């Protein structure tokens, strides 16, 4: 009995938390353990959840050491683990002193229970179970001695395990060891993995999403480049058509004319005339390669988009993530001081971001203030839209003049071609700065909203610019009577891309640096400026759209974009570290990646596909250059090649029959999309149902807790 009293004394010191509770009800006083009578304690101690405790500290000896008598050290505490292994996970309510008491009484029984449970199993099973017990090694050795000595007496095969078991064990252990040590290696194979880890820890998830997006685009371009390289560039490079080579002067790198205009770079170079007869038909290759790459990119984008959306609609939503983050975000494998410090930074940033999401304070504004804000918003939007409109008009007029040679400025030859791209790049440089000014004037509450609004405005700008340029190229250029209009369009795209690159480099090196110096010295701000995510991401998307449109007219363009992206990564990283700082209010960019891929998919990629399909279907290719000369449309070239292929290989006839029946048949498409939509609907319903079940179960657990408190209180009352 005195053991109980002593234990309750120990416990009273630790139950101070109950006194802190502000919502003290009368029952709480009943729940204070030092007030419980011995009878209550005894009853509670023999509750099934208390006797079947999983996380019983086996070092309980030291805690009871002041009250320890010699016979306590012998019994195995918490040894009932395996006997009730299945119930444990649902019923554990751990409480030190009571389980100590219960185990003191029942310890001997538990040890026997455990030993007997082990005896019922085979040697390997028993060993496995023994290893998984949360007991001290000394205890385990004792149990093993008892359990297995009895076993070996009864079994014929002694402890000498046959050698193949040793070997298989050894193999499985080595395999596991290899696997575990290889996994981190695989993840570090991902491009720029360590750099991104550093960046995300310091600057937050928003900036990280930009760099991840850059990496995605890099891989897409690599894929594009490899496919066009294999099927278009290399065959043509091996069989070059005879053409007069112009001299190479430096300006060609910028304008794409001259030396480059009759090269692998542009559409005009490719022809079916130099390739050996029927073996490799350039029109077919051109048509199908472009079609195939676009199809592959479409699939990849849809897949990424659906994965991102899927993450946002998970069953267990992210608002329950804080506790998980605290306990499982730390990577215990790191042992270097620097990495450890970096991890601290990373986890702090993540926690701060989640906190800021949770505490979204809303200040109440007066009517006047709300009206004022509304007016400011309207003004800002009008200003932005007007500026976009003006920019678009400017580009429209300029591009109309561009292909007529006369200009008013006296520039050296060929540089007049650069005027359009310079103007477009200038607009792309200045207007986002203007948008930033508007956003600063509007003074949005949360940084997240600010970024989304900026993204939208930048998107409008880019869409209008590219839209107007495409219109120009497709409507007026072919009718202009140029010798090789596709190459001209390709050259224009090349110029736009290169000029964009140069301007970005200059802006990153000079502009951001100067802005930081300016803001720190003249504006006297203590903090460095924040990395402008919206502007940079839209720049990437703009470049990528140009590349995609340009693949048809200039097959080497993805290579240019590839180089540009690689250089951009290192440059932006450097600039970020030198000139920028994390946002003062950390915010969680959970949906940034989804948004970026969405923008990449919807206006950018689909727009490109529409443009290309329009070109291929309706516009007449030029007569003197390119693989589709002497045809009415490029599409016809593709059809002709298909027919030719079918004649050559009859097997493909059934393939085209299948194509005609299935893909071009609208009924089948309707059916397929109908089934698809139904599947999506069912999945959504299942997810919804699971969410409901989870919330009900949680409510049930809460109620059980309340029941327990109620019963304890009643027990107290009865004992009094």
């Amino acid at each position, binding site marked *: 009995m005195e053991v109980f009293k002593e234990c309750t004394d120990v416990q009273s010191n*630790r139950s101070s*938390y109950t006194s802190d509770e502000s919502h003290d009800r009368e029952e709480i006083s009943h729940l204070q353990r030092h007030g419980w009578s011995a009878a209550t304690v005894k009853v509670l101690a023999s509750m099934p959840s208390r006797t079947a405790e*999983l*996380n019983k*500290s086996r*070092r309980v000896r*030291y805690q009871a050491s002041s009250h320890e008598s010699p016979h306590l050290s012998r019994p195995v505490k918490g040894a009932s683990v395996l006997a009730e292994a299945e119930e444990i*996970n*649902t*019923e*554990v*309510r*751990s409480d030190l002193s009571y389980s100590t008491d219960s185990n003191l009484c029942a310890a001997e029984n538990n040890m026997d229970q455990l030993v007997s449970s082990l005896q019922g199993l085979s040697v390997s099973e028993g*060993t496995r179970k*023994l*290893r998984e017990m*949360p007991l*001290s*090694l*000394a205890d*385990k050795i004792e149990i*093993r*001695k008892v359990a*297995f000595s009895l076993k070996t007496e009864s079994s014929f095969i002694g402890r000498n395990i046959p050698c193949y078991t040793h070997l298989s*064990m050894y193999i499985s*252990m080595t395999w*596991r060891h290899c696997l*575990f*040590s290889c*996994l*981190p290696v695989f993840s570090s194979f991902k491009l720029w993995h360590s750099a991104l880890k550093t960046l995300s820890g310091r600057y937050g998830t928003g900036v990280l999403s930009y760099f991840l997006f850059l990496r995605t685009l890099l891989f897409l371009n690599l894929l594009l480049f490899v496919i066009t390289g294999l099927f278009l560039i290399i065959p043509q490079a091996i069989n070059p058509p005879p053409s007069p080579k112009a001299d190479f002067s430096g300006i060609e790198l910028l304008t794409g004319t001259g030396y480059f205009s009759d090269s692998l770079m542009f559409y005009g170079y490719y022809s079916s005339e130099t390739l050996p007869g029927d073996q490799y038909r350039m029109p077919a290759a051109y048509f199908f390669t472009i079609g195939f790459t676009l199809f592959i990119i479409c699939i990849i984008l849809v897949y990424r988009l659906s994965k991102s959306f899927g993450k946002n609609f998970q069953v267990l939503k992210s*608002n*329950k993530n*804080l*506790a*998980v983050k*605290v*306990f*499982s*975000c*730390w990577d*215990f*494998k*790191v*042992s270097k*001081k620097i990495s*450890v*410090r970096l991890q*601290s930074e990373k*986890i*702090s940033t993540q*926690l*701060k971001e989640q*906190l800021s999401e*949770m505490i979204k304070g809303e200040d109440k504004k007066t009517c006047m203030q709300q009206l004022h804000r509304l007016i400011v918003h309207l003004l800002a939007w009008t200003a932005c839209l007007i500026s976009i409109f003006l920019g678009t008009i400017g580009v429209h007029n300029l591009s109309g003049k561009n292909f007529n040679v006369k200009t008013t400025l006296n520039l050296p030859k060929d540089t007049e071609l650069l005027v359009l791209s310079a103007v477009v790049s200038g607009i792309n440089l200045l207007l986002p700065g203007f948008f930033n000014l508007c956003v600063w004037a509007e003074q949005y509450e949360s940084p997240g909203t600010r970024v989304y609004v900026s993204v939208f405005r930048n998107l409008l700008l880019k869409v209008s610019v590219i839209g107007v340029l495409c219109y120009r190229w497709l409507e007026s250029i072919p009718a202009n009577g140029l010798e090789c209009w596709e190459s001209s369009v390709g050259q224009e795209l090349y110029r736009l891309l290169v000029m964009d690159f140069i301007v970005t480099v200059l802006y990153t090196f000079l502009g951001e640096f100067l802005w930081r110096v300016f803001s720190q010295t003249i504006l006297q701000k203590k903090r460095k400026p924040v990395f402008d995510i919206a502007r940079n991401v839209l720049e990437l998307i703009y470049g990528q759209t140009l590349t995609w449109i340009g693949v048809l007219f200039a097959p080497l363009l993805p290579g240019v974009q590839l180089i540009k992206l690689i250089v951009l990564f290192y440059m932006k990283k450097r600039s970020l570290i030198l000139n920028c700082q994390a946002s003062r209010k950390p915010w969680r960019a959970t949906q940034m990646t989804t948004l970026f891929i969405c923008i990449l998919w919807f206006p950018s990629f689909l727009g490109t596909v529409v443009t290309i399909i329009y070109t291929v279907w309706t516009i007449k290719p030029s007569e003197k250059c390119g693989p589709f000369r002497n045809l009415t449309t490029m599409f016809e070239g593709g059809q002709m090649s298909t027919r030719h292929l079918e004649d050559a290989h009859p097997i493909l006839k059934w393939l085209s029959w299948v194509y005609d029946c299935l893909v071009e048949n609208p009924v089948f498409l309707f059916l397929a999309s109908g089934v698809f939509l139904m599947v999506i609907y069912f999945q959504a319903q299942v997810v919804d149902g699971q969410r409901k079940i989870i919330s009900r179960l949680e409510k049930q*657990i*809460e109620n059980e*807790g*309340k029941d327990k*408190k109620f019963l304890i209180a009643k027990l107290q009352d009865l004992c009094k």
Partner: protein
Amino acid sequence: MGNKQTTFTEEQLEAYQDCTFFTRKEILRLHARYRELAPHLVPLDYTNNPDIKVPMTLIVTMPELKENPFRERIVETFSEDGQGNLSFSDFIDMFSALCEASPRELKTIYAFKIYDFNRDNFICKEDLEKTLNKLTKGELTPEEVTLVCDKAIEEADLDGDNKLSFADFENMISKAPDFLRYRHLFGYVFIF
């Protein structure tokens, strides 16, 4: 096979092998590492099970543990006297429980014990605050720390007693994405 070693008897080695996730070689290497920590204290010959304990101050100098923010707690949890002085059994036990071959359930049990600073078998708010301070090393302000702890307990506490029992903890860990559970819950690679 192999070298004739005199550190342990065959029965001892077999017992260790059966009760931990290590092979013979690894156990012998572990003994060598253990001895390295305090060569004057730890004898070469363990056949008669000497009762030697290496103090915590020496154990936390091991490279695997040196930068771990929870090194003292880990050593305390596995020590018999609760002060962090490990005998060789405790030493092997510690690395066996934390090694990669040990199952997730076992690691969850020990993780709970390690995070339970005041050893009352609950992770209460103070325990959580200490954990957080060790993880973030002063990057968060005290208000932020309190706020995170409040929110975390609110999220994870299922039965409403404002503390995390083992069931709450295990339930919460099971919600972590697989790769996090897999790698981050004490996935040690014991360096040989």
